[in-house]
């Protein structure tokens, strides 16, 4: 995803004179091409994220469209107040990109896990909270974020994530998209972990369980029309996120259902439990430990299907 981000940023910087890329001292060599295209609009702000976030707000108030790029914990919770006050309260249209989200850096330990960012950032008024499932969705969201009058947070993975969306249609801010058709049960979530859900859906299909998989994509604003359609179709939902089950996408779904008079939906939240993970391994290992890989998800699907 990060290579797609660098490519799209380079294209956007060539097209428009207001796009400015701010890096928190990461992305070695990744932005070489960008720097050839727009050297004056690239700034390594150092390992100083609070300052980087506030200065991005200042740039945006002066008419530029800054895009901040660093590892998710450091561009979210590290500088939360600068996001709240400088960016969101001012409605300064900054695009905050967190890379290596969720458990992408699982083996680096809790310092590099981001399992609370969605929960925290979706409480901030006027901030788009976006979590693309793949690079196709990321590219569309990035373009739209740079045209939006509001600031945006885009939560991306690292590299090598599979492509899940067939094309760009029905993607963007405020849009959810069905990735895999099914009839019995819906898995709705965010991020590259949805690839595991599709594998699980294929696995349980052999047993006659038909599972649909959807990318919510835009946690805020949410695609309520899409959710209405899904609620008419499915009574059993599973939310899935590489994020704490507290306050994230699953919680947002529960809030939505609770506020909707007609809902008779049963919703199971899958994600990371309310603990720090310090027995470390890579992302694959960690997903497996948490029951969030295809095998673990298939187990959860069978359980929910039987009710």
């Amino acid at each position, binding site marked *: 995803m990060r290579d797609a981000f660098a490519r799209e940023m380079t294209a956007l910087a060539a097209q428009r004179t207001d796009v400015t890329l701010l890096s928190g001292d990461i992305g070695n060599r990744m932005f070489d091409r960008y720097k050839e295209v727009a050297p004056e609009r690239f*700034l390594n702000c150092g390992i100083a994220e609070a300052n980087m976030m*506030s200065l991005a707000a200042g740039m945006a108030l002066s008419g530029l469209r800054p895009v901040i790029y660093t590892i998710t914990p450091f561009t979210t919770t590290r500088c939360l107040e600068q996001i709240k006050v*400088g960016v969101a309260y001012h409605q300064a249209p900054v695009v905050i990109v967190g890379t290596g989200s969720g458990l992408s850096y699982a083996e680096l330990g809790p310092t590099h896990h981001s399992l609370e960012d969605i929960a925290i950032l979706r409480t901030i008024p006027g901030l788009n909270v976006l979590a693309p499932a793949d690079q196709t969705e990321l590219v569309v969201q990035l373009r739209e974020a740079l045209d939006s009058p509001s600031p945006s947070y885009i939560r991306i993975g690292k590299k090598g994530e599979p492509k899940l969306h067939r094309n760009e249609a029905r993607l963007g801010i405020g849009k959810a998209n069905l990735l895999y058709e099914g009839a019995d049960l819906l898995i709705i979530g965010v991020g590259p972990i949805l690839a595991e859900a599709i594998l699980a859906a294929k696995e349980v299909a052999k047993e006659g369980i038909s599972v649909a998989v959807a990318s919510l994509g835009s946690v805020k604003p949410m695609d309520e029309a899409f959710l209405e359609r899904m609620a008419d179709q499915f009574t059993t939902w599973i939310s899935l996120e590489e994020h704490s089950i507290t306050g994230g996408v699953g919680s947002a779904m529960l809030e939505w259902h609770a506020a909707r008079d007609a809902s008779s939906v049963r919703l199971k939240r899958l994600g990371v439990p309310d603990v720090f993970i310090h027995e470390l391994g890579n992302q694959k290992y960690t997903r497996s430990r948490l029951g969030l890989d295809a095998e673990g998800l298939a187990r959860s699907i069978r359980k929910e299907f039987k009710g």
Partner: protein
Amino acid sequence: MISTAPSPLDAAQLEATALTLRRRLVTTSAEAKIPHLGSCLSCVELLVQLYWQELHIDPANPEDPERDRFLLSKGHGAPILFQVLAERGFFPIERLANFGKPGSVFHEHPPKPGYIPGIEAATGSLGHGLPMALGMALAARIQKQPIRCYALLSDGECNEGSIWEAALLAASQKLHTLTAIIDFNKWQATGRSQEVLALDPLAAKWGTFGWHAQEIDGHDFAAIAQALLAAREESERPSVIVAHTVKGKGISFMEDDNNWHYRTPNPQELAAALAELEPI
């Protein structure tokens, strides 16, 4: 390029303006019971010099893209900034009748731009204004706009790490269009700033961070003018003006008494304060 002050003030007029602003400040703060009087009184001369002599601004066109930017990084100084903006003609002074009233935009800190003409940023959480001004100065360089950006900080605010993050980046970027002014009144909310976190030698610290650092008497208009001119002439480094000030300046029983960080005057104290602020 937009104009500076329509007719720059002479020394006596600057003093008279500062006196008027202090009178209005203590009066409205007493009526509205808005604190931080001591912090407002220490930066009156700095603001008067900036708004009447230094900044390229046009009160009739407060959103001109080529205006200089001034950010009150010490956002708790808003009560005096509101008085300055009204007196400078950004909005009618009658609007300040609402100061501190329920539902008013005029309260303890500046709101985001768009509500009060002349306000560039919502500050009040310390350590945000200087980095935002830095972003504006970087934007101006990218956009090739010949503007200068200023941030007024408190000494307590220099406790915040983000101030020093901004200081380091501004220096590496050789951002000579950025000027920080520190209202060094030697107090923060609950103690002597030097005792809370060792700031001294403050100007030397900024100097070693790569800034063009000057130390002045922050109540001396000529010294402020000279320092701002030197900052303007500096072509390599960002500038900091460490302005030695007195908290509560101008009212004898408030001077250097940190109780006036939070207290507001009762009617007797207001009368005594106003008696000291009579024009000579």
